[in-house]
């Protein structure tokens, strides 16, 4: 009996793993995940204030908003099919779900980092001083990408430095030690580190505006079968955007949920180019610069071996944007689709 039970539980475990790929069909209940970051805190407010529910009710569906503490884990969960949508950056959308063969659509282009990610040196004031140093960062993340772009701008390459993979949770403590002299990280850690004595921010994402983009990514098949989900999410998002601009209490709640206060949160917002207006996001998504940015990101990712096993070159994965496709047209796995944001801009939601 016991053996039978054990076998049975093993079978259910295996079965639980099998249908993990999101079943594409019309359904009425959806799970979306988000993690702590200034550009994604609105989802927390939207869920607790009832705005998300209001829009879900309007389209007669259910939307469950789930916070995941570990950012990478949230993307992995989405890629494995446990969530229908998730918040992530453009680079992670390419290297994790798209490289895993999960066709993903950037439904909402929420903002881009405009100083939220930066390189900090101890006791040196220009980026070229980084030569020969050990740089602590989360390897293969947008920090790594930012550093590579920064090095490029001063005629250096990754060969001129050595990177030390350091978990984001320990970044601030690590910077406090004597043998760490250079870090690349993001907010709120960045502002914490910048405030320490003898520290200089020598390069940040405002030097490469529009390249580190924060998205809400939806499984393309799920979206195709359930356009109501796209409409409800976009509708809710821009109502939250409108609310947080006029209501301090909304931003206070977002600040507290991310472990800071209103002043700290507003400081982070100042280095984030939020697209409060849907029309701005649509314009950004349609611009030819986005193709260029995604090409940089794809080339960086390929060079670091994170485009997946099948990748023979940077253009292995097709990236579709309104201004054109970068990469393989027969293997499109990441799509920038502004049509829902467009509906909002035209008042059709």
């Amino acid at each position, binding site marked *: 009996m016991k053996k039978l039970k054990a076998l049975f539980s093993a079978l259910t475990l295996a079965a639980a793993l099998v249908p993990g790929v999101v079943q594409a069909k019309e359904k009425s209940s959806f799970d979306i995940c988000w993690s702590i970051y200034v550009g994604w805190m609105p989802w927390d407010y939207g869920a607790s204030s009832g705005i998300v529910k209001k829009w879900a009710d309007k389209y007669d569906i259910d939307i469950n908003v789930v916070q995941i503490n570990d950012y990478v884990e949230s993307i*992995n969960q989405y890629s494995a099919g446990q969530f229908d949508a998730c918040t992530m950056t453009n680079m992670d959308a390419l290297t994790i779900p798209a490289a895993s063969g999960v066709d993903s659509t950037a439904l909402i282009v929420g903002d881009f980092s405009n100083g939220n990610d930066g390189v900090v040196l101890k006791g040196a004031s220009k980026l070229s001083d980084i030569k020969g140093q050990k740089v602590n960062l989360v390897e293969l993340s947008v920090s790594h990408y930012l550093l590579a772009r920064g090095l490029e701008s001063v005629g250096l390459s990754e060969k001129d430095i050595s990177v030390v993979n350091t978990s984001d949770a320990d970044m601030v403590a690590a910077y406090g030690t004597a043998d760490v002299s250079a870090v690349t990280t993001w907010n709120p850690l960045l502002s914490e580190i910048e405030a320490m004595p003898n520290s200089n921010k020598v390069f940040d994402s405002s030097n490469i505006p529009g390249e580190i983009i924060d998205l809400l990514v939806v499984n393309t098949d799920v979206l195709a079968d359930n356009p109501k989900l796209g409409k409800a999410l976009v509708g809710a998002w821009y109502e939250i955007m409108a609310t947080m601009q006029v209501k301090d209490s909304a931003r206070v709640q977002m600040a507290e949920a991310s472990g800071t206060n209103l002043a700290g949160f507003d400081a982070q917002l100042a280095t984030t180019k939020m697209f409060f207006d849907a029309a701005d996001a649509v314009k950004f998504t349609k611009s030819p610069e986005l193709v260029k940015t995604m090409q940089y990101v794809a080339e960086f990712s390929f060079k670091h071996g994170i485009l997946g096993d099948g990748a023979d070159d940077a253009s292995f994965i097709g990236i579709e944007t309104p201004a054109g496709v970068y990469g393989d047209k027969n293997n499109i796995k990441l799509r920038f689709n502004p049509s829902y944001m467009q509906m909002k801009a035209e008042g059709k939601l």
Partner: protein
Amino acid sequence: MKRLINLAPSRPFSVLLAILPFAVLVVLYIAASDARLAENANDKLLPSIAQFSAAIERMAFEPSKRTGEYLLWVDTAASLWRLFQGVMISALMGLIFGACMGLFPYARSAMSPLFVAISLIPPMAILPILFIVFGLGEVSKVVLIVIGIAPFIIRDMQARVLELPKEQLIKAQTLGANSWQILVRVVLPQIMPRLIALVSLSLGAAWLFLIAGEAIAAQEGLGYRIFLVRRYMAMDVILPYVAWITFLAFITDYALKQLSRKSFPWFHALQGAKS
């Protein structure tokens, strides 16, 4: 009358029985993996056997595109060296402090409560302090292992010394031995095999602390690689690494057992008699 408790499998049959659960797991895995890959050929969660062998080939036998190193071997060497240092320092501390605290009441009174207290601190909770004191380099990873396992070895060694029969110590004294001679001739030989057993027991925890340390900051190592490729869900690298770690742990455990049997046959004869 035949009872279930009296039925034992024959030798070949027991080997077969031992293999069976592994075979069932492998079959279940392959079935689940095939099902997922059939839906999405690029799925990374449950890679196929072919993907595993490609990943092993890439990690172990091809120079890395970025550094030109053979990653698996570089990682293995780095991790084993850290593990060796941490475990050796802990064993040495266990031997010295444990024996002294067991044998000398003054040492026991002075240090035992301290080590009890230290052994109760969860090492992961004081990590930021360890960084500040020991830096982010190799030292802090070794220290994390030492803080994790040394107090437990020390406490157990003290208990083992206290377990030695009083008569032995009295007899050695009537034969004119001083404290040093008793320590070296009576206590040490008897606790050595127990130390080896303790080290092999603490290896599991040592691996845990090693991988935790490498997850926080590192440039190479088995734990480092797992946490790095976890960023893009490369289970085709992670699972072989886990299997490799399991294999290394098994080999060390086996080697320690053989060492103990070869060096202290009398101890194992005694153990055999007891059980």
